[in-house]
């Protein structure tokens, strides 16, 4: 049985904001199925009582000194933006309604 269906891949692509093509869906569904069957081996390990490791370095609450240091200028911060206006990142419309004229 397949671990993941074409429909599930399409759903995950939508969640991931990837406008994948029909051809990609066909390819990815098969490939991801192979990968998922392989990685599912982690389920063989008896680990109910084992704490998870998210990170190999046991550092917590790492804070810097609370002093002001120079940062990027607005021009530098916007230098790579696809679109900018009035020292801000300009984006396509966010709300799904007509812009008031």
């Amino acid at each position, binding site marked *: 049985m397949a671990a993941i269906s074409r429909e599930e891949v399409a759903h995950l692509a939508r969640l*991931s904001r990837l406008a994948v093509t029909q051809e990609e869906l066909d390819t990815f569904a098969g490939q991801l199925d*192979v*990968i998922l069957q392989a990685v599912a081996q982690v389920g063989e390990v008896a680990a109910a009582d084992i*704490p998870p490791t998210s990170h*190999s370095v046991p550092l917590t609450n790492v804070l810097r000194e609370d002093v002001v240091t120079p940062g990027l200028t607005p021009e530098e911060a916007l230098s790579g933006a*696809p679109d900018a206006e009035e020292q801000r*990142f300009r984006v*396509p419309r966010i709300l*799904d309604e007509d812009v008031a004229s």
Partner: protein
Amino acid sequence: MTDVTALTATQIAGLVATGGASAVEVTQAHLDRIAAVDGRINAFLHVDTEGALAAARDIDARRAAGEELGPLAGVPVAVKDVLTTKGVPTTVGSKILQGWRPPYDSTIVQRLRAAGTVMLGKTNMDEFAMGSSTEYSAYGPSRNPWDTDRIPGGSGGGSAAALAAYEAPLAIGSDTGGSIRQPGAVTGTVGAKPTYGGTSRYGLVAFSSSLDTPGPCARTVLDAALLHAAIGGHDPRDSTSIPAPVPDVVAAAQLGATGDLSGVRLGIVTEFGGEGAEPGVTAAFDEAVDTLTKLGAEIVEISCPHFRYALPAYYLIAPSECSSNLARFDGVRFGLRTGDDGNRSLEEVMSLTREAGFGPEVKRRIILGTYALSSGYYDAYYGQAQKVRTLITRDFTAAFERVDALISPTTPFVAFPLGARTSDPYQMYLADLFTIPSNLYGGPGISVPCGLSDGLPVGLQVMAPTLADDRMYRVAAALESAVGTFTPPAL
């Protein structure tokens, strides 16, 4: 003057320090070499000719003024395109960042400048460091100087190929699952993954933040150690940076070069035997083990029962972190924006931008990570993988109670032909079978050339305990002193 591109970084630094060559002459020689051979190798995505010569002139002026300069002053270095370089293009091998010129330098690049090295340019890589061959670069694969129809490893294949092709004596890589060590192995060069947190991730474009580790690449162990010392150490701008000094890796490499490993206990991982490596790799490794024994090392076999689950755990943890990290590529703050025709919504533009900007392997991993983190699957996949990570760490801890370091082949197979593994992604993943455990544990690992199989290089990996990076340099340098370095046929 001798051909400076044939020299080690140590030799070049000595030559520059004693006035045998200027930094400008050394830099120009490497730029000329790049111009002559890189059309066939494609190691570089961007050559910063002007910047390199300006940096070299600066070094020469400072030396003329009597300034005391560091041990690598005037030595050229190639930098993997995963690290930000102020004003110099940084693409991560992806179309989504094509043309981006970062407004700041990564810590590693700042330290390279402070050490007086001369950055030649940015090297090719699998897109977002996801791959083992550079075939997932959006800018075409790099080629292995040993055989240009074969892969140079990945993701840092550009850095390794630049070293093997004598385009640079030093290079920087980054290692999330083997991306420094595996390219080192298949190109006959040296690549070291430092202890996680021992080198700064500030300005390293994130793939899997709990695993990503920048590190040194070179043609000799001592050169790698010198580069490691120059870039390593605590960085307050990386919250996972370890506030401890870097072990004296240079002294360890020098000690190892005496060829004496008396009193050193090395473990061979039982679970890496059997399946895994192809016969030529196993033969070269076995011969290297004999050599290490002759050098005085004691070899014992060690069982690490959970290592067989390292690859599956990695391909849940790394994609999960990647699916989160790569959300920042949304067509708003930097890089590509596609489909913004004035009618489409932000969400539509984002989806079209990411579809156009990311290649197939990146998309696969984002989808896989989104799956592993989704409710209903989280405990069985991501959560379980994190528990396996704990068990792998315990295997390492137990092993290092009995031995000083573990050894293995770096990679199961030598450089394979271009195109051989791209249709089945999981076959590509197997390239990192032996390197991934160290990433999950966080300890350091190094690949050093140990022999040839059918004329292609084989690497031996040394894995050491967290913060004991010096141990792996000692063992690697000792092996190098016995087997020598490996030079590919003339290009």
